[in-house]
């Protein structure tokens, strides 16, 4: 990561970060990194450090300082005690770093020293490491060990660019960290949001003339529903990137109408393989290409498989998922068209099985969302003794409409657009859907 430090050194007076209306320069960042490095020197016997913080100028400086010192870094943003405890123990963390009034506080973790072969592989190369946790909807989280030097290697050749990034995805997320390192490698500015509500974000975009918004389809839909774009001048936006879940076609169409001058780009990646370099066929298209020599892909039985230079070293608490010489089955079902463009259709584990026929929630959601009165929809499978599972939809409607009539209207609309087994058997009208802190749809009974 020495290349990143020399870039930071060169970017000198550029603004690296805006946090709570205060701007911080790259020179400030470098100074801070050096200060933190001298502090970490006191803990040479420790190698696994957790940063418990969301993005702040200091947490970013600490991340870079730890990387410079070839440490293993465990970013944790949770405030839930049990979750923190589990992650600390799973990652065999030796030191917790928190921030109190901008000053780092170091808390050693009392535990028996034990070796970890994944960490040893990273240390043997003289690299720094990253431990991230999968936010899988089922089962316990998996602790994923990544080589941070290799993960960021493809950013080394980035040219300086005068861009302003909103860091929307979180500090402990591969996509969020990718945005951060991407911005730093270009000498760009990262704007740190205080919260992630549409109104707040709209205000932030206007105030700081943000050019790049990396986010999720769920959040973009919330922005449309709340009509944030009417209250703020969002004309500084040049590029909106979306990922972490499939984008409904109807949502992309609505977004294009509201943001006609903005380029839309689909991003794709997994914590296990790092982020791919993608290009969307056009701003209107859900088809994308995975490009670049650092990631290969193929489709096996409809599922996307990846093989990446930035492959994780493994899970700490689970078996190796790689098959056939290092291919990673992503669990994402895709459709391939000419010129190697692919479209994500849905997650393998979210497929609803109706009497042996497969239904992708996103396809049904997309059809329901075609109706103007529908603000949002989530589709999932419910157990059923006749067909194994049935399709159930939870729908948020515009306020003023008659609910009974609407259910009927939705049923008839689905009848015209979907095969029988794909149509929702149960339609539940709800006041709102739950997205969680990561602004992804939760497709479950409770969702």
């Amino acid at each position, binding site marked *: 990561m020495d290349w990143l430090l020399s870039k930071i050194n060169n970017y000198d007076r550029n603004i690296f970060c805006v946090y709570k209306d205060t701007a911080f320069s790259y020179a400030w960042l470098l100074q801070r990194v050096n200060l933190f490095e001298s502090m970490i020197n006191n803990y040479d016997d420790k190698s696994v450090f957790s940063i418990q913080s969301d993005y702040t100028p200091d947490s970013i400086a600490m991340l870079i300082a730890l990387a410079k010192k070839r440490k293993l870094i465990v970013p944790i943003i949770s405030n839930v005690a049990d979750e923190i405890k589990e992650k600390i123990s799973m990652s065999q963390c030796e030191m917790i770093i928190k921030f109190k009034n901008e000053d780092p506080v170091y808390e050693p973790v009392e535990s028996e020293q034990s070796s970890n072969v994944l960490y040893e592989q990273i240390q043997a190369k003289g690299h720094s490491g990253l431990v991230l946790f999968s936010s899988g909807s089922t089962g316990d989280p998996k602790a994923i060990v990544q080589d941070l030097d290799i993960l960021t290697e493809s950013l080394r050749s980035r040219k300086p660019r005068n861009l302003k990034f909103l860091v929307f995805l979180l500090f402990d997320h591969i996509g969020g960290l990718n945005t951060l390192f991407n911005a730093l490698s270009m000498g760009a500015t990262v704007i740190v949001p205080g919260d992630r509500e549409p109104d707040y974000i709209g205000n932030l975009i206007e105030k700081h003339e943000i050019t790049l918004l990396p986010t999720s389809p769920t959040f973009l839909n919330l922005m449309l529903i709340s009509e944030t774009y009417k209250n703020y001048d969002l004309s500084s936006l040049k590029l909106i990137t979306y990922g972490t879940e499939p984008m409904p076609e109807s949502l992309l169409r609505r977004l294009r109408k509201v943001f006609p001058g903005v380029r839309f780009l689909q991003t794709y990646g997994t914590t296990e393989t790092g982020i791919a370099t993608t290009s969307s066929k056009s701003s209107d298209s859900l088809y994308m290409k995975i490009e670049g020599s650092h990631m290969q892909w193929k489709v096996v039985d409809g599922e996307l498989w990846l093989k990446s230079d930035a492959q994780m070293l493994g899970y700490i608490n689970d078996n190796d998922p790689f098959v056939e010489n290092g291919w990673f089955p992503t669990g994402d079902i895709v459709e391939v068209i000419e010129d190697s463009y692919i479209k994500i259709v849905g997650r393998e584990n979210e497929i609803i099985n*109706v*009497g042996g026929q497969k239904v992708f929630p996103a396809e049904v959601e997309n059809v329901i969302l075609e109706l103007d009165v529908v603000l949002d929809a989530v589709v999932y499978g419910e157990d*059923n*003794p*006749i*067909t194994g599972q*049935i399709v159930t939809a939870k729908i948020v409607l515009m306020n003023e409409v008659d609910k009974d009539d609407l259910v*009927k209207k939705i*049923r*008839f609309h689905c*009848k015209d657009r979907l095969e*029988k*087994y794909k*149509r929702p*058997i*149960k339609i539940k009208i709800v006041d709102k859907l739950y997205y969680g802190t990561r602004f992804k749809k939760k497709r479950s009974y409770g969702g």
Partner: protein
Amino acid sequence: MMKNITVDISKIILSSLKEIAELNGFRIAEYNEKTSLYGNKGYLDSMALVSLIADIEGVLSEKGYDITIASEKAFSRKISPFLNVKTLKDFIHELIDKSRDRDG
């Protein structure tokens, strides 16, 4: 012994049936207790039956009767509860009675 149930189950079945017939384009000659549902030249296919059951369960639940109509027990009967409107009505009455006994 049949206890006092304050909703007209037949009416609920027939009203759900009408909606499903309309949605699926089924032409049902007469709506009464003899109307065939599933099997033995019934009007419904399996997806329509699943819909009908879900709809009826939904309406009953709104009225305070939380029962599950489709179950292993329902399928293992000598005479299918899903044969016609009357068999289904009787079966639902039975389920409601049982759920009340259980609830005390």
